[in-house]
């Protein structure tokens, strides 16, 4: 069985790759395209460390085939900062010490950014439920939630 030829857009760049039919988008990103910011914590959609945004929706890249990416627009953690300017969420995560080991951080940032693009003023409860699929074992989530709230406030110009 030959490989599939897929054309897609990743972080604004037209990207082509070859993949096996049963290869996940996560494996394509990490092993074929060198985009290792998305992490595999479980491979079953339970931890969210592999989160990316596809056509405006946050998904687990471990639960999507690379072949499904044909013609889609994908945003990964590598596309969150603009040049040397960090996204407000990235800055606030650093200011609030919202990461300890940092393995869940890319997935949480991608997912939180997707939230703030839909809901610029989420409540604490909305943030917690939106991020419920992103496991963090280090922080107890307190500083993560505060960082998201603070970034949202800054982005609203509050």
């Amino acid at each position, binding site marked *: 069985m030959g490989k599939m030829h897929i054309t897609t857009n990743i972080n604004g760049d037209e990207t082509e790759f070859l993949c096996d039919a049963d290869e996940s988008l996560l494996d394509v990103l990490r092993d074929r395209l060198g985009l290792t910011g998305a992490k595999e914590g479980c491979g079953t959609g339970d931890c969210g460390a592999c989160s990316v945004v596809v056509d405006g929706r946050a998904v687990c890249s471990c639960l999507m*085939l690379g072949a499904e990416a044909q013609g889609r627009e994908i945003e990964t953690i590598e596309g969150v900062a603009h040049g040397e300017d960090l996204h407000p969420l990235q800055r606030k995560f650093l200011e609030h010490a919202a990461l300890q080991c940092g393995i869940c951080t890319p997935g949480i940032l991608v997912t939180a950014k997707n939230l703030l693009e839909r809901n610029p003023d989420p409540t604490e409860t909305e943030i917690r439920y939106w991020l419920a699929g992103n496991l963090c074992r280090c922080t107890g989530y307190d500083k993560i939630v505060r960082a998201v709230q603070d970034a949202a406030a800054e982005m609203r110009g509050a």
Partner: protein
Amino acid sequence: MRFEAPSTVDGAVALLAAEDGVTRVLAGGTDVMVQLKSGMVEPDLIVDIKRIPGMYDIVEENGGFRVGAAVPGVMLGEHAGVSAAWPGVVEGLGLVGSTQIQSRATLGGNLCNASPAADSVPAMIAAAATARVHGPNGVRDVPVEEIGTAPGKTSLARGEMVGSIYLPARPAHASDAYMRFIPRTEMDIAVVGAGVSLVMDGDTVAEARVALGAVAPTARLVPEAGAALVGKTVDAAEEDLRAAASAACSPINDKRGTIEFRTKVAGVLAVRAARLAAERAKG
């Protein structure tokens, strides 16, 4: 393994029918991909139905709604009409997994995965939803409770696939609710699930359908529980409803819950879901 993304339903059916090996229909993939990862299933063919026009559509039909098989939870929840008419079905699918899962998981996938604990299924059964099944011999509409036959098994024949789910029209003063019990607040499989659909006449229940999940090999309609509600207020029916729901359970002990727990909590949730549905119907 082959991956195909046909552009018509007929094309999808033809691919599925022609494959002698193991096939899987890929909509949201949130179950299929887990099965692939674990090696539990090694399909010879995967048919992605998301490139078929109409699969992401929600259209009004005879006062009800036809929901395309690729419509994910988040889109269903964003649809004002469905959310108003069938809030219980929306919350049933909406409870499946995380934000990320919601971007992909579908009613049809939840139904065809045939887990007894699928959250949207009791809500759809209570709603008297039907699945439109496309196959080599044409199209048929099937009550959703007839799709799952056992854990992981469906009544679909070779070459058949679900193309859409139909949620029927609602009379005035009608609503539904779905509640489930999980140990955490999110990310778990239901230990018990209860869907209730009511038509109210003032404070009195005029029509009722109650369905339970995770308490038997398949999600099931519980006519006795519905009957316990009809002609009474939910408050007056509470004890009978609780007893009827618990009596309908034939669960197992497993890593997620005990027989005693599931039996008892099925009654609790049936009552809570009925209260919420009644409140919404009156609202």
